């Protein structure tokens, strides 16, 4: 109990850091992921190749490697003096974007062809077909996998803690260096992560429930 009470402000900072990293990276991942998924289903060949290459490459890259690229290669080659938070968000966001892209693409693919054909047959335009028929169904299929992707993202942000970011892993490292018992640190850090992952889980349950239709 002492570990938590003595270092409440540090824990709070770490918790806030993890949440901030997760939320910002999730937003980056959604934006890039949707664009890449768009590339992958587009009728333009080079974009399809680009999308496929992006997904295959990033899915087979360890996140630690991306962090090495972000922290040692990017500042040297592209932009020096970037904030470590921005670099961490790039690494986590890009990594997760590949998974988001896959989820979105398979979400679109599960909408059956007959739906679009029927929509066209009753005279809906392309935009109407998309807006009223295809995308609502695709969204419903994309939401459940997104939940587990973002929970995985939350856990992945721990790596950022080893690269100069204040987050829960960083806190556990600091406290363990200060000589506190690792068992108690572990318990409290675990609890903090459970809170975040359960919050994401609950949020997506609500979202899923709202999107649900009776069939």
């Amino acid at each position, binding site marked *: 109990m002492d570990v938590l009470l003595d270092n409440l402000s540090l824990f709070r900072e770490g918790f806030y850091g993890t949440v901030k990293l997760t939320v910002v990276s999730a937003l980056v991942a959604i934006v890039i992921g949707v664009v890449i998924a768009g590339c992958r289903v587009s*009728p333009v060949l*080079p974009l399809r190749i680009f999308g496929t290459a992006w997904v295959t490459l990033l899915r087979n*890259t360890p996140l630690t*490697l991306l962090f090495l690229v972000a922290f040692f290669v990017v500042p040297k080659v592209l932009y020096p003096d970037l904030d470590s938070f921005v670099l961490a968000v790039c690494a986590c966001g890009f990594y997760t974007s590949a998974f988001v892209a896959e989820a979105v693409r398979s979400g679109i693919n599960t909408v059956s062809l007959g739906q679009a054909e029927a929509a066209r047959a009753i005279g809906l335009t392309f935009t109407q077909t998309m807006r009223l028929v295809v995308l609502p169904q695709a969204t419903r299929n994309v939401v459940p996998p997104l939940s587990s992707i973002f929970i995985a993202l939350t856990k992945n942000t*721990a*790596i950022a803690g080893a690269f100069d970011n204040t987050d829960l892993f960083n806190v556990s490292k600091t406290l363990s260096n200060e000589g506190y018992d690792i068992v108690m640190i572990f318990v409290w*850090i675990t609890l903090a992560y459970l809170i975040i992952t359960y919050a994401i889980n609950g949020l997506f349950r609500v979202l899923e429930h709202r999107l649900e239709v009776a069939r």
Partner: protein
Amino acid sequence: MSANVLFDAPGPKARVRNIIYTVIGSLAVIGGIVWIILRLNDKGEFDPDLWGIFNYSGIRQNILDSLVATLKVFALAGVLSLVFAVVLCVARLSEHRPVRWFAVAFIDLFRSIPLLITIFAFWVGLVGDMEPFWALVLGLTIYNGCVQAEVLRAGINAVPTGQKEAAYALGLRKTQVMATVLFPQAIRSMLPSIISQLVVTLKDTSLGFMILYPELLQSARLIANNTPVNGVYPFVQTVTVFGVIYISLCMILSGIATWLERRGRRAKTGIKVAAAAEPAAVAEIVDTAPDKK
């Protein structure tokens, strides 16, 4: 392109438009690549001296050693996690409530803690002193064991109930039903997912970087730090070389998963084969599926 839910088959106008987009798209993609190459060239990263470090036999030996170190952890953690997964899965499906609850709690707990934190805690001394190697192996085993257990459970749940009932009707005991009827079918149907999770295990060996285990990325960092060429630290070069090694390893393994999935779909065994997607992301979906039906 085949029929797609998003687009009609293109007519003459759309075909012209698609050609224009193709040109613009190619230019954008090629432009991006060229920009990065020019930028690297500007910073002198293509200097042959910087790449020459990979000619030193010492560095080659380092690369080989670290590759072996990574594969050693991967092999041990992979095998142990599968064994552990079978135990957890049996416990999870046990008819004894306390055993089942314990398994559920254990799986849920360790799946929601970041692996890095588990490994770090073992390394610092959660259960006594531990070498980085064993901390890494133990962390990977527990985390991946939990995920693989859920994958196996999803596979067992997907076996039609008639199979189990028939086996019991033949007079087989609980263990026999599990070992001879349910597990073989579950493993067969879940093999692509199991292998995909092994890819995750392989990728996660890179977490050894944080606890100073001399695996691929750690030795990449050491090489870059210790061999400055004309005052420049060859980070770009080492990250490229080690990245290519890592990514090829993972891609070979994912390739096997995809191949197994295709093969399973062609086979006429009547066993449905899971997608070769990463189960960490999929397990939960498979999980909730039976409840919804």
